[in-house]
């Protein structure tokens, strides 16, 4: 149930499968189809790097798997850049395990579990047994058992599916860096209950799939548990691929009357859905008819895409580059910008991959070995202080203690990100607000 598999183009895999299973022999079209396949393959790119031993000479190789091609290639690229910054910092500071340099071996999962599993098999089979990355929970669920069976270790930096963590997790050597939907909802509810104690009514607009429904239900229930006497007034769930919301916006508009106080809009959408909804709602000033608008994860790209016209929206995730001004964050942002000036700022995914590489670096040094069993044992014990504070893995569940950042942004055309922070709260894994600001 990662927040990211919501954006998955559902047509791609089944459609390709159908393409394979249809049988026909058109003499004139065969070259065309072959050319098409070749062109698609070329357009999608290919995996980079070649694998070799995890520790050869003065080099320790970390296997990085993510979606480097396909519709989420940009996110895969952002993740890779975060990992590159971590590797550069570690190497500049003297490397790991007595001065060995870290090196990334990059593989493209093409946003497909089977390809991800094949990439993991290739990496581990050729000796690169410390794997991290993965954008989508379905890929983590495919990769983790493969790596486990071949004697490797996996850190999923973005996946948040429940079966991946806990005592009965799918692979014992799997560690999860991302916050779970449960944790992000709990943190969101905590902050919203504190900010808007008189909230009584919530309208929900979300994607019609399991995570959309779960997030909406869980976050509203958490708000009730935090003392808010809220009820869901209207709820609309739309297909993942939909971007035409006139009917829902019109219906919401007609259902509202009176002052905005006490009323909230919860968006259980992300990406294109959130962007299109906010654009189509803008002429009606719909968001201004609510005291607050809340979403849960992955909003920043939508806010940026709105080019400064984004309304005030609360979001919960792990990272926002301008929230804190400590030296660790400054160094991370500065090096990221230097690596990729056109891409502006690191985002959640960059930060997660950055922390994943740092966790491995510290674990290798602590274990004084690249042996997967020793590194896994060390991962369960170490703590790494990153831009937003200390992060460790729970030894029993292998979930991370990464804090949740609950923040409210609004459009700012003058800002490079086209967004400005209005308020933020950093919430600990025990659901305590540990830092606030505006």
């Amino acid at each position, binding site marked *: 149930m990662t927040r990211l598999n919501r*954006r998955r*183009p559902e*047509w791609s895999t089944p*459609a390709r499968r159908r*393409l394979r299973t*249809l049988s*026909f022999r*058109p003499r*004139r*079209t065969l070259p*065309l*189809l072959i050319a*098409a*396949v070749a*062109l*698609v393959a*070329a*357009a*999608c790119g290919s995996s980079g790097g070649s694998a070799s031993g995890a520790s050869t000479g003065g080099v320790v190789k970390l296997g990085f798997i993510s979606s480097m091609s396909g*519709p*989420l*290639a*940009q*996110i895969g690229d952002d993740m890779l850049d975060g990992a590159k910054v971590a590797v550069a910092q570690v190497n500049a500071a003297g490397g790991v395990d007595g001065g060995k340099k870290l090196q990334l071996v990059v593989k493209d999962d093409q946003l497909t579990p089977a390809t991800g599993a094949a990439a993991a098999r290739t990496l581990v089979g050729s000796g690169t047994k410390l794997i991290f990355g993965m954008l989508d929970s379905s890929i983590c669920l495919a990769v983790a058992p493969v790596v486990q069976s071949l004697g490797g270790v996996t850190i999923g930096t973005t996946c948040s599916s429940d079966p991946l963590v806990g005592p009965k997790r799918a692979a014992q050597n799997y560690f999860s860096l991302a916050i779970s939907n449960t944790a992000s909802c709990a943190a969101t509810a905590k902050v919203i209950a504190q900010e808007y104690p008189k909230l009584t009514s919530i309208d929900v607009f979300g994607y*019609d799939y399991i995570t959309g429904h779960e997030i909406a239900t869980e976050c509203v229930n958490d708000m009730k548990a935090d003392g808010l006497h809220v009820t869901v007034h*209207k*709820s*609309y*769930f*739309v*297909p993942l*691929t*939909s*971007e*035409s919301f*006139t*009917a*829902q916006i*019109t*219906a919401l*508009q*007609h259902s509202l009357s009176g002052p905005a106080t006490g009323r909230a809009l919860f968006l259980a959408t992300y*990406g*294109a*859905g959130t*962007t*299109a909804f906010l*654009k*189509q709602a*803008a*002429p*009606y000033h719909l968001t201004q008819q609510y005291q607050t608008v809340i979403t849960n994860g992955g909003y920043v*790209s*939508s806010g940026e*895409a*709105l*080019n400064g*016209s984004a309304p005030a929206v609360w979001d919960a995730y792990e990272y926002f580059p301008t929230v804190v001004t400590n030296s660790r964050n400054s160094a991370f942002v500065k090096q990221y910008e230097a690596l990729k000036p056109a891409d502006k700022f690191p985002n959640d995914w960059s930060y997660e991959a950055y922390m994943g590489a740092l966790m491995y670096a510290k674990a290798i040094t602590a274990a004084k070995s690249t042996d997967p069993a020793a590194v896994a044992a060390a991962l369960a014990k170490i703590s790494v202080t990153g831009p937003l504070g200390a992060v460790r893995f729970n030894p029993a569940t292998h979930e991370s203690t990464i804090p949740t950042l609950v923040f409210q942004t609004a459009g700012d055309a003058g800002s490079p990100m086209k967004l400005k922070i209005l308020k933020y709260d950093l919430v600990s894994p025990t659901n305590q607000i540990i830092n606030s600001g505006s």
Partner: protein
Amino acid sequence: MSNIVPIILSTLATGLPLFLIASGLTLIFSVMRVLNFAHGALFMIGAFLVSTLLSGRAVAVSVFVGAVLVTGLAVAAMSVVTERVVFRRLYGSPEVVGLLASFALLLILSGVVQLVWGSNPRTQAQVQGLGGVVRIFGNETATYNLVLIIVAAVIGLALAAGLRWTRAGAMVKATAEDRVMAEALGINVGLVALGVFAVGGLLAGIAGALLAPTVSIDPSLALTFIIQSFGAIIIGGLGSIEGAVVGALLIGLVDAVLVVVAPGLLDYGVYIAIGGVMLVRPYGIFGATARRTVQA
């Protein structure tokens, strides 16, 4: 009245923009027997092109209209290239071959869009002066939705008139009716095919450009509207322009009604509309006669 007007407005606002996309699809199918999945990619390219031409900024109506026309023409040219390079080789082949080729083309064009524009979503700001709402019988509707309704209606009427009353329209209908006979009568069928793809591409490009200010512009846009557009032409009857209008409006109506009476069924609006029509008209509302000819 207070309940009916919002439903009518919502129906028109959802349905007529959908018709803009569906009209090109059905036109191409009627003449060339190609169910063109790549139409979705051309629509997406239209949205990307207009946002690039305008740098995503809010512009005056006249500038926007100019950008939409330039975009439409550029996409029409791309559509012509696809006809010459891909589809011309497939005429006479089973329809499934054209379908697969168009799907391959969709994948290729989506890949090219990612290479050119990247995967990051972008937006096109609303046109200056069209960002608010207007009140119709006491009900608010977005001004830009009203503009889309009017533009789609004008394009639909122009298309129907062109097919019915012009020499080119007669040639298109003749080719759709019987390709071999049309050729025997001296009609340049190859030129008709080019023209049909050009007009289809023009409509896709204009639709993409016009909808750009209301959507998130990213590579997933290629399939966002194409499924509903296929639904519209299936409901209306493959190859029928009037059918595309009626099908698109029916989908808009079903959505507008479901959102009020059964929001939980909204996901299935298109399929409910298709299923309902298929039960009584298996070839679509205008399908019985439109199956082998263009209706105008």
